[in-house]
């Protein structure tokens, strides 16, 4: 078991810079999820941790040891591949024992067998040990790939998009199993995914990457409630946060560019006339009469999701504003409505970074503050 310290890590492939100075500290036993769009460098970071690629610059420490120049087998890390990469000619047992046999050739057979059985038991693979990968279902293969990695009891367990080849139902159950596995082993785990739900649900530490850099790292809820940049704000949450360019007015509110409305700002001091970007999560909004709303407009589209309803409201800007309301909110497309929210639910960004760290915004204001609905 060991923490991971990454300092100023750079990786270039010819003229392409995949990692552009990544600095990151993961405490011992953390479940870190690295999340980002494809091509953001998250897989490269994982491969550098594994030792499958060499760093152009920067250092990696695992458990206090500098492993930057070490080959994979001397790093005490194990990896679960996206494609599982099971050895097709070996049984499940042999797949899991392969690494043990290579590493500790002297170790007696009984110990190896015992460890494979233990891992197999943990992952419910006892009955499949004699099968070949071709005879397994996708979920079973995934568990074997995990088993092959954990059986060696590595200091750090790396997982590259481990759930992306599974169907939706299976993804849910393997996700739960991963969480349980982490609780049980306590190993430091680094999990790469493009799926924000996976990241939100599994991570102790969530690392959001963009263009080869870490944009924000921390507990998932921190990233959700206090996104450091507009990118983070839009990346997390479905539907994503509404972001509007605006100008600060004399009365301390903000006026969206190119549209009407007054957006309440949290307790921040901004000179009138400053250009800002304001963000509101759809679920922070409530409906009210048009004249009472911070924003008002015509409902273009109503989407019923069962537990909630999405309103797409044209407030005169390029993009409609999306609000998530309770299931009993009734409205028809074409109707006019106002939208309101608590001032501390407004996220304010200036020059691409978060300005106000007001109190936790959220659903505290379920009642329209102006009209009392």
């Amino acid at each position, binding site marked *: 078991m060991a923490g991971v310290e990454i300092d100023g890590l750079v990786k270039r492939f010819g003229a392409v810079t995949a990692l552009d100075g990544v600095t990151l500290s993961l405490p011992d036993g953390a479940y870190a999820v690295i999340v980002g769009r494809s091509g953001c460098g998250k897989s490269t970071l994982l491969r550098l941790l594994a030792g499958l690629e060499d760093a152009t610059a920067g250092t990696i420490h695992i458990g206090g040891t500098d492993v930057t120049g070490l080959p994979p087998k001397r790093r005490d890390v194990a990896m679960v591949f*996206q*494609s599982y990469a099971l050895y097709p000619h070996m049984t499940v047992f042999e797949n899991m024992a392969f*690494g043990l046999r290579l590493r500790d050739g002297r170790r007696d057979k009984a110990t190896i067998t015992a460890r494979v059985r233990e891992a197999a038991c943990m992952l419910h693979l006892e009955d499949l040990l004699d099968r070949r990968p071709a005879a397994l279902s996708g979920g079973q293969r995934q568990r074997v790939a995990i088993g092959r990695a954990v059986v060696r009891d590595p200091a750090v367990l790396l997982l590259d998009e481990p759930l992306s080849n599974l169907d939706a139902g299976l993804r849910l159950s393997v996700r739960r199993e991963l969480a349980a596995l982490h609780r049980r082993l306590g190993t430091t785990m680094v999990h790469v995914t493009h799926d924000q739900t996976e990241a939100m649900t599994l991570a102790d530490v969530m690392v959001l990457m963009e263009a080869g850099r870490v944009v924000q790292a921390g507990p998932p809820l921190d990233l959700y409630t206090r996104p450091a940049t507009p990118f983070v704000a839009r990346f997390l949450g479905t539907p994503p946060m509404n972001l509007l360019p605006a100008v600060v007015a004399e009365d301390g509110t903000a006026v969206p560019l190119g549209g009407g409305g007054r957006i309440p700002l949290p307790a921040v001091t901004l000179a009138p006339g400053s250009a800002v970007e304001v963000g509101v999560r759809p679920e922070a909004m409530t409906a009210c009469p048009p004249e009472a709303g911070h924003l008002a407009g015509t409902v273009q589209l109503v989407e019923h999701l069962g537990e909630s309803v999405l309103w797409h409201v044209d407030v005169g800007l390029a993009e409609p504003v999306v609000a998530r309301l309770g299931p009993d909110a009734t409205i028809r497309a074409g109707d006019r409505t106002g939208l309101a929210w608590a001032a501390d639910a407004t996220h304010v960004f200036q020059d691409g970074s978060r300005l106000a760290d007001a109190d936790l915004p959220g659903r505290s204001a379920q009642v329209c503050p102006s009209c009392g609905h």
Partner: protein
Amino acid sequence: MIARIAFALAVVLIVAVSIGPLGYAVVTSLETGSALFTPGLWPDAPTVANYAAVFAEQPFARNILNSILVAGGVVVLSLALAVTAAYALARVEFRGRGLLLGTVLSVSMFPQVAVLSGMFLLIRSLGLYNSLPGLGLSYLMLTLPFTVWMLTTFVRQIPKDLEEAAIMDGAGPLTIIGRVFLPVLWPALVSTGLLAFIVAWNEFLFALTFTLTAETRTVPVAIALISGASAHELPWGRIMAASVIVTVPMVVLVLVFQRWIVSGLTAGAVKG
């Protein structure tokens, strides 16, 4: 209904044309004397005299052994060379890789006769004229290009993750090749090797040119050179017996490994 009958006829025709000649060769090989010269579909008095004669009148057993040795040696040598080459061509990035692969493929289009005199000098200067190693060496020109090509295609189909998984498991290059790569590549090696074997087994021009004595001949040459008392009296019964002897193992081999051969051919040709 008419379409069905026509279809059935087509199938029957295809089968008859395909295996008829071989069947007739078998029939002929079982006949001797005058029975041979009355065309008929069934031997009246089947005899194995021709088969005995093939082995009695020339070192045919030796010829068969030669063919097996040369073809087997060529298979082992070309697979060993081709696996390493295919690994490099499929996995290692280097400049001119496409060009090299193209050149290799173009060698398989070389007309044999174009290298005949040069190869003759090469073999003679190595002191291998009229010997099996010399013949085997010349066959590498025929087998290497397509074995390299086919194996490169197969190696490319092996996911890179598999190697990396082995690296993560702590395997060194030798362990990866021996315990991961070769076992995964096994079916490809069988089909490629089989095709190389067939090429070497069937080859005629080099075998005819680079051997001199009956003891070093391979089977195709031996069969082509079976002759009777005079040029106009070919011992057809014996020729057919010899033909059946060398063909039956080939046919059995091809039929048993049918699926693999087809996958090998298409990997080499279609996907190229």
